[in-house]
């Protein structure tokens, strides 16, 4: 059971998480907040669920999380100031916030995988899925879904990338309330930097991305490309250097090809 009072004494944000919804079980925290008919419209609204019956990643891949042990939640953003050309920096701002929180609270060494996975010791500790809706070409709302493995000690099944949790890395359970508060405090701070210092976000992000400069493969829709992970452009797209050109990659599953 999530202790809201304990969380509330530690959270220090102005907007993010000030409207807080707690649920024992929902289908998907992202779907719930994205759905306008549920009438939650306040900027920074958080929906935290102990269990998602239809938790998912991109392209409806399933996200498994044991009930009550982790942090599975979504953040709603409706402010148009984030929806401009650098909209995609939200991917980097979010994953960087998770990395900072894990480093600050538990001194874990984190690694970031393009575009937004957070890894510890080469294993996935956090998955992020951003979803937005637009009417025509006007983006109306963005929901940032975060699945952070906290106190789950056992992961069964086949995974694209081996999972881990904070408990598995530290050998002990940690306080979810303190972690969520730290994460939201950090996220709000980084969000403010999106306008004033976007370069700083990208620099901090790239500092944690070990694959830059390496040979990689990028697989999307069964099609694999090989090249050197040259850099990220200012919008965060991956620049893949192949034989005679630099290609801008919108998305793909990345692997080292050393």
């Amino acid at each position, binding site marked *: 059971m999530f202790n809201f009072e304990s969380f509330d004494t530690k959270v220090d944000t102005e907007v993010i998480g000030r409207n807080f919804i707690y649920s024992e079980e929902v289908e998907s925290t992202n779907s719930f907040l994205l759905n306008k008919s549920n009438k939650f419209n306040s900027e920074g609204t958080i929906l935290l669920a102990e269990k998602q019956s239809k938790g998912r990643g991109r392209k409806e891949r399933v996200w498994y999380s044991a009930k009550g042990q982790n942090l599975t939640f979504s953040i709603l953003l409706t402010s148009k100031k984030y929806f401009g050309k650098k909209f995609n920096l939200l*991917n980097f701002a979010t994953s960087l916030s998770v990395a900072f929180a894990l480093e600050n609270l538990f001194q874990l060494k984190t690694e970031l995988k393009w575009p937004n996975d957070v890894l510890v010791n080469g294993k996935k500790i956090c998955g992020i899925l951003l979803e937005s809706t637009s009417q*025509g070409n*006007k983006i109306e709302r963005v929901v940032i879904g975060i699945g952070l493995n906290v106190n789950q000690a056992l992961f069964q099944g086949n995974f694209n990338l081996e999972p881990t949790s904070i408990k598995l890395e530290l050998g002990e359970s940690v306080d979810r309330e303190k972690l969520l508060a730290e994460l939201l405090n950090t996220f709000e701070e980084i969000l403010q930097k999106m306008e004033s210092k976007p370069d700083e976000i990208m620099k901090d992000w790239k500092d944690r991305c070990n694959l830059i400069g390496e040979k990689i493969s990028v697989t999307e829709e069964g099609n694999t490309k090989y090249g050197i992970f040259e850099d990220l452009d200012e919008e965060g797209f991956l620049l893949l250097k192949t034989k005679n050109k630099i290609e801008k990659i*919108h998305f793909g599953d990345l692997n080292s090809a050393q």
Partner: protein
Amino acid sequence: MDLNLIKKLVKIVDTSEITDLEVEENGLRIKVAKKLRTFKTYEQPQVIIGNAPLQETQEKNSLTEGTISATEKPANVHEIKSPIVGTFYRAPAPDADSYVQVGDTISQGAVLCIVEAMKLMNEIESDVSGKVIKILAENGKPVEYNQPLFLIQTS
């Protein structure tokens, strides 16, 4: 609008010494002009067309860098454009049905497609009610910011 006519005009301009060509037929004016680009060693054709079959022209490599402006789009045809750069998907998952087909009647707020960039899935809803008369982008292919995706005929 005869697309082949535009292609022929572009070819004529592209392979000849002339820099621009203007044709008027049945009230539709088509102007094809070459513009010298400093970073390329050859001349790039620039296309300005009045009545816009935007997508077909953009799909042709020879035309992708031209300037295309629609000045005489019929009043009851509404364009849905992409709000972001990304990959265009007509269905929520690879094995799922498409959100809409050409000929479907849709109401405002109906989901038309997803454009994905990195791990950001943007669901695009129609901002008008009407009939889908054309789907201008190809499933699984990249689309640019503000690229037209659908033509909706409003009633």
